[in-house]
């Protein structure tokens, strides 16, 4: 799958907490969370998350409760808006145990966000701004034995189901 990139190393949660300047009171929850939203680091902004993260946080919270967290203090939270038409979901650290549920919730969220008009007609040469929607995200998966993999995707939103299945398959290999 050409739009899916994989790395074997990724930042630790401690590193993310330092980057975000997380206060001590929140560190325990961040370490324990099965799903953690971390700063996107776009434009070298250490405290900025992709626009819409607040809504995604609420959706994930409703599904996963205390098992998910975000690596930022309330007052430090900022969003970065890059106004080209890509649904940028941001960056996540996910424990192996929560991977299937997380991928499923993320898929539902993408579907809800990208309800948009159908293409005019397949026989027509469409300008780039009318091409099917693109989505991007980075998911770092970790297990209790220290295994880590980072999956980075930017490509058609319509391919999400295959991408999610591929991520699970690649993680379970070895």
């Amino acid at each position: 799958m050409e739009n899916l990139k994989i790395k074997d190393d990724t930042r630790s949660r401690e590193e993310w907490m330092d980057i975000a300047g997380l206060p001590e009171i929140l560190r325990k929850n961040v370490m324990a969370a099965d799903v953690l939203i971390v700063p996107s680091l776009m434009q070298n902004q250490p405290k900025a998350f992709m626009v819409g993260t607040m809504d995604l946080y609420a959706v994930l919270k409703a599904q996963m409760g205390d098992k998910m967290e975000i690596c930022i203090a309330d007052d430090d939270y900022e969003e970065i808006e890059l106004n080209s038409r890509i649904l940028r979901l941001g960056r996540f650290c996910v424990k192996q145990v929560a991977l299937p549920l997380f991928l499923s919730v993320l898929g539902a969220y993408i579907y809800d966000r990208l309800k948009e008009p159908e293409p005019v007609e397949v026989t027509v040469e469409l300008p780039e701004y009318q091409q099917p929607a693109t989505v991007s995200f980075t998911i770092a998966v970790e297990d209790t034995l220290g295994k880590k993999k980072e999956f980075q995707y930017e490509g058609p939103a319509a391919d999400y189901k295959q991408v999610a299945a591929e991520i699970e398959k690649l993680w379970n290999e070895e």
Partner: protein
Amino acid sequence: MKNKAQEILSHLLEDDFNFDATIKEIDALRKSYQQQHDEENANVAWATLEIVSLHRDYRMVYSMLQEKQYYDAWCLLEQIEIGIVHLLRNFSGIKNAVSYIETMVRQLQSLYPYRVFFSTVIIVKERICGICGKKRSIRHHCGHFPGHVYNGELCIDIVKKAELEGVDIVFNPEHKYAVAFMSDEKDGRKDYDYTLLDGIMSRWDDPYRPWHYTTKHIHKSPDEFPDLTDDSMCPCGSGKKYGECCKNDPEGVKHVVYEFRPGLKEEI
């Protein structure tokens, strides 16, 4: 409200439909339902108001294009597109009320010559909820989600504090109004070639008469462009000079043919 909405919408396509008076009437109803906290009827009134406004705006686009106000029409097309997204996100069952407009808006947009846009990079530091006015907080969500309708009101966020980080040039903008212009077209100089839109407008005599088009690629002989020099802009529309583009293509100059079908006074 449901019966009233159906009655209003059944007259929408009539030539003498009074948009302004109808919008005023529905808005008054919406406000009265809001005051009674009758959320269901207030939301139906909001949807009815949106549908009527979208059709009014669509007709305005048609008039603007007749007057060759291309950029103004472009901006209004984007507003219609956004309005349809919000409407269908909340009321997916009423797609039929706007599906024709949705198709025509996208067709008209795709005939515009605009391909390059500006895109801002903004760091949003503080925003408030447009429904309850509370400051947005990551861990203390007020329960209102942007893009959803609550008691007859669309929830939008109001940005109170932000910093502009930069401006990019993009081909797939979030905001289509940010078209790159070299000059102010209102001064008479045209940066873009609107031939396709002009062709449509000279043959399209009713905004509710649908047309469709397809495109296909052909090559033309350079002999068909007698004034072409190496320094001319390539006729294929790549934005490159002819000498650096189709001159080196043994098949000739790349060309896109648009074929329009029913709904127009004559075939083009």
